[in-house]
């Protein structure tokens, strides 16, 4: 059974007690903690809605982030608006704190688009499915920022399994050599689909940083306060010209890898139970209860979450399939004769049948 190591940076225990840490502290009011809790709940709800929509056939797939909300909300809330995010495919919490419309995220999983949002609108890049690729983009983006004289941090996310891709270590090398203001966030949810940490690494991931010449920290990824503190510190480190940082958020994927996955094949119920007790929402709730948070606070969140859910459900059903024209657009920035030719041919071809018909057009399966 995979349990939590005891050398994690922690500011809030899973029993909901605030604790101190020698290197990291957080000056935060209870109201601010409530605001973090609100985000945790909204993200949880977003995730649950998406899972439900997948079950109803509205999405082809969903990659749940349940259990990782604190890691993501902590990382996301510590960002400044000028910072930029290069996510993997499970960063729904950071998408949320960045202001990306959850419906846009779902387009990718519904299969109506390979993207779905404008990366520059919220400084939140497209989800990246090929493991590790985005880490290099983050470094290059940060290198360009240095050339522009900007003091912005760039966040990039990957998983415990993903840490092994050559691209990730090359990103470490480049970030180190160019002193790029990149914060590498590894959400170690202890599984790469079915493969537990011991099949992926011999030493904790955060230790790799030192060999590439920059600091690495291991944080209790289920502790939103610790995450906020360490990420704030790390972005500031990056912004102030000290170079990259690696943060390993030690967490646990409470759900399945994706809705196509069957985690009962590779992990035991009691392990999941152990981690449910360490749920990132639960501990904040325990704390908030201990400081006399009124029920109305929770009720208000419930109302907001329900409103979001309504928006998501309606929005997803309205996500239209691409038209034939859309399908052929944007292969290139400038016209390409072969694309134009095939576009023409397919248009003529479908005209025989009165235009391209979508098997999904009737409104889902």
């Amino acid at each position, binding site marked *: 059974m995979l349990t939590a190591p005891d050398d994690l940076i922690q500011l809030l225990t899973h029993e909901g007690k605030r604790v101190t840490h020698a290197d990291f502290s957080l000056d935060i009011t209870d109201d601010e903690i409530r605001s973090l809790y609100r985000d945790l709940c909204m993200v949880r709800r977003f995730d649950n809605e998406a899972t439900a929509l997948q079950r109803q056939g509205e999405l*082809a*797939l969903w990659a749940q982030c349940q259990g990782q909300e604190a890691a993501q909300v902590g990382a996301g809330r510590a960002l400044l608006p000028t910072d930029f995010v290069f996510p993997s495919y499970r960063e729904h919490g950071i998408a949320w704190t960045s202001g990306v419309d959850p419906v846009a995220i779902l387009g*990718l*999983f*519904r*299969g*109506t*688009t*390979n993207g779905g949002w404008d990366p520059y609108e919220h400084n939140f890049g497209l989800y990246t*499915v*090929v*493991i*590790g690729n985005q880490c290099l983009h983050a470094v290059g983006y940060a290198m360009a920022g240095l050339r522009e004289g900007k003091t912005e941090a760039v966040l990039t996310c990957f998983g415990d*399994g*993903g840490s*092994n*891709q*050559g*691209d990730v270590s090359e990103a470490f090398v480049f970030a180190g050599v160019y002193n790029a203001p990149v914060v590498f966030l590894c959400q170690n949810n202890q599984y*790469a*689909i*079915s*493969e537990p940490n011991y*099949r*992926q*690494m011999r030493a904790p991931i955060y230790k790799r940083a030192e060999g590439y010449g920059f600091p690495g920290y291991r944080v209790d990824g289920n502790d939103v306060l610790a995450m906020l503190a360490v990420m704030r510190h790390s972005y500031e480190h990056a912004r102030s010209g000290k170079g990259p940082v690696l943060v390993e958020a030690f967490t646990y994927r409470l759900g399945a890898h994706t809705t*196509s*996955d*069957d985690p009962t*094949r*590779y992990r035991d119920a009691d392990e999941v139970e152990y981690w449910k007790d360490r749920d990132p929402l639960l501990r904040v709730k325990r704390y908030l209860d201990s400081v006399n948070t009124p029920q109305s606070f929770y009720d208000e969140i419930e109302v907001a979450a329900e409103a979001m859910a309504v928006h998501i459900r309606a929005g997803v059903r309205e996500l239209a*399939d*691409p038209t*034939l024209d859309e*399908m*052929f657009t944007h*292969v290139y920035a400038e016209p*390409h004769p*072969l*694309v134009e030719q*095939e576009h023409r041919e*397919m248009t003529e*071809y*479908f005209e*025989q*049948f009165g235009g*391209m018909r*979508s*098997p*999904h057009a009737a409104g889902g399966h």
Partner: protein
Amino acid sequence: MATLTMAKAINMGLRNAMKRDEKVVLMGEDIGKLGGVFRVTDGLQAEFGDMRVVDPPLAESGIVGTAVGMAMRGWRPVVEIQFDGFVYPAFDQIVSQVAKHHYRSAGKTTLSMVIRIPFGGGIGAIEHHSESPEALFTHTAGLRVISPANPVDAYEMIQQAIAHPDPIIFLEPKRRYWDKAEIDDSVDVMNKAEGYSRLFDARVAREGSDVTLVAYGPMVKTCLEAAAAAEGEGLSLEVIDLRSLTPFDIDTVVKSVTKTGRMVVVHEAPQFGGVGAEIAARITEKCFWTMQAPVLRVSGMYMPYPAARVEHAYLPDLDRILDSVDKAMEY
């Protein structure tokens, strides 16, 4: 005899190969307890242990590169790449090492390894999960590239591929994983007199006289459906299942085209630079005076694999194939 899906047929083939030769080692992300994302290796780790069914770290170049090292020592690694779109991180190892080692070592090093890749679209997956990269491998001398189109071939070909001394890219048509067929599991595939000698032969999947349809992997079934539909319209289509892309069994195709004089090649990959181009060019050269129409091609388009909800428009289907057949007939 057992009725099995293609996924199960490959599973049984792998099991047989592992029993036959204890140097056979399976390596691939999540192929152990999970049995692979398509369950093709279901139960094999429980049966053979985690030294023979290996869940490696998440790094495709690492998987293929270590497999090369194992093969250098006489082991027979069978690598599973989880999806087509994730083979590219291993591309360097495949093109520069797997393909070239036998040649570079003047035959001293034999890399008997198989790289299994579920490929192609049609299952409504998100991006990078529906690609058809076969042309990138067929252009690379030193590799053999094969693809079964049905459970029986899948069962036999995987065993023959594992027994073969050359490195083989084994493309599994993922949307056909759930197709079923009767498999005769009482015969030892490798003990049949021919061993792997027919592994690279094309197969006439359906005889016909008007137009030859050439396909492999997922599109063979689609072509057979098209041929059945065409029959109703009085057209007789011959369907050739290539089974192997390199070597390419040109004789079987030439024989068919000599009869029909017309040919349509079908694949999911984009037409431009696809395998169909080579087939068209080669057959046209051989059968220049026989061809009554140019070789036509039905394929995916020149774009990244599009969003799943429009893949039906991207992928060749029965109608598009018959449309091209009609065009070929009009010449």
